[in-house]
């Protein structure tokens, strides 16, 4: 709840309608209340982003290995 609460505190600063809607949606999702506790939302975002980044690197690595093979054949 820490992040959501702090965002709520600055709600006036959120002029855009999209921001307010997003906040309402966040309030509706119950699990977010839990994961928000103790600054854990950022952890969740970080963990998911890190996982996606790792697999993106692995796919890039796959393409790199393939390209090396093609280059060697041309050489």
């Amino acid at each position, binding site marked *: 709840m820490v992040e959501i609460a702090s965002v709520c505190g600055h709600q006036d600063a959120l002029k855009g309608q999209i921001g307010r809607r997003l906040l309402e949606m966040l309030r509706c999702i*119950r*699990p977010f209340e*839990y*994961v928000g506790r103790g600054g*854990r939302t950022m*952890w*969740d975002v*970080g*963990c*998911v982003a*890190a*996982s*996606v980044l*790792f*697999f993106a690197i*692995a*796919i890039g*690595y*796959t*393409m790199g*290995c*393939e390209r*090396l*093979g093609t280059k*060697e054949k041309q050489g």
Partner: protein
Amino acid sequence: MTANGWFQVFFFFALVLLCAKPLGVYMAHVFEREHTWADRIFRPIERLIYRLTGIDETHEMAWTEYAVVMLLFSLVTMLVTYAIERLQQVLPLNPQHLAAVAPDLALNTAASFTTNTNWQAYVPETTMSYLTQMVTLAYHNFFSAAIGIALAVALIRGISRRESKTLGNFWVDATRASLWVLLPGCLIYALLLVSQGVVQNFRPYDQAKLVQPQTVTTTGTDGKTSTQTVTTQSIAQGPTASQEAIKMLGTNGGGFFNANSAHPFENPTPLSNLMQMFSIFLIPAGLTVTLGRMTRSPKHGWAVFAAMATLFLVGVFVAYYAESQPNPLLHSVNQHVTATQAGGNMEGKEVRFGIANSALFATVTTDASCGAVNSAHDSFMPLGGLVPMVNIMLGEVIFGGVGAGLYGVLIFVVLSVFIAGLMVGRTPEYLGKKIESYDVKMAMLYVLIFPLSILGFSAVSLMMPNLGLSALTNTGPHGLSEILYAYTSATGNNGSAFAGLSANTHWYNLSISAAMLIGRFLMIVPMMALAGNLARKKMVPPSPGTFPVHTPLFTVLLVGVILIVGALTFFPALSLGPILEHLLMHAGKTF
């Protein structure tokens, strides 16, 4: 060491040897899509799965497509696992009302089970709900193993196919590995485990009244101590047998309970212990026969099996010998073997298994990348503890994880053939395929990533007192061994631990997650590249200069290459850890 102990070691190995061929031949039939006895049962289910998921089973994949599909599938399943761990408090099948898993621990566990490592930085019975254990962790136990088998089969196809751009279909291989191999095996095995007393229920935990109440003094975070009298004990329950079966057969190793296979509900009898060790080696041993069948060179499969068996027997001998010797620090105590005394190091071992079965289990579980334990590796003598660590450091190729062991050893086969080619000054050939510069580059990428992750993360942890060293409960060389073992186990996708390290910290959860992912996926990619490149090649008929890969000489060369690569890479670190600890123990120092 006793004759009884050695009899049990050889009986176990004879059982593996006996079953390797029938299983290996069966798996070759399954992956070559030949007729098997199980087709009548599984073929309709397989067709239904493909129809529901829209998979074209006739579609053949190039190595890049095979690898990318595998990576994306692993990513999605890993994220689902993470989500379920984080939301388990609002999901069903949580009779103990366990809270959500902390984010860093959830990431660590998701990476751990996706990579077939099953490193557990938590106490399962107080952290994971039944749903989390059954839906996500047990699911990964099946699919990470099935993916391993599928990848090994793809590499075998790369070796056996001629001028082909494809290696098979990932979905088909993974489905067939699950349906034809893992599921029927686990069904029978789980029932056998139940017959031995392994629990299988959904009951809340039992509460037992203690005959002798215990007084416990605890220190709070504020430094104040409080005394509490404990009168009841909570006895954990759960669907254990079903998970135990795939935990061992899929070389996963993640225990349903914290004590893993030392827990009487997971591994109650000497017979269940034998079944567990046997099931760890069964599929990896069978896959060597599958290699021989699919490459039309059965003797080559047996030569690879012989190399693995040699390294396994050496490991068992050293571990059993080290653990059965009297402890030099207790020289004034009578430590001779008697009917009531094991005569060696019994610390951290279950009395019902004894020294022989604990040393054998430790060797088996670290040869194969299983990681289940029936004794505390941290409590082994320094040289006894060295064996599990070295087994993993050799690349988990001594039978190894299901599939992972075979593709790992085949990388060393390519290197052995390359070295043999250098010796005689000819272009190296492997089963009719010329081994060229690109193949060796990919093999070396595979080999080098492994020590880079282990030694790199260990070095960083050792340099950071607040992050790395603060989690240690032992100092000196034993402390170094604990950190080294953790990253070795993670990168090797083993999952066992020197439990003196309190690994449930932000640093260890995150860095070990990275090590597990690197050790699995960044090693698979060059292996698949090698497979793809081999598949494209023409077959060259054998000539007088061809190095035969089915002879005892080849087995000796393969063993030599595996040992030299492992020894050269890790000897400096080992000399500062378990080897130094062994020398200091004889000088009267302990840590």
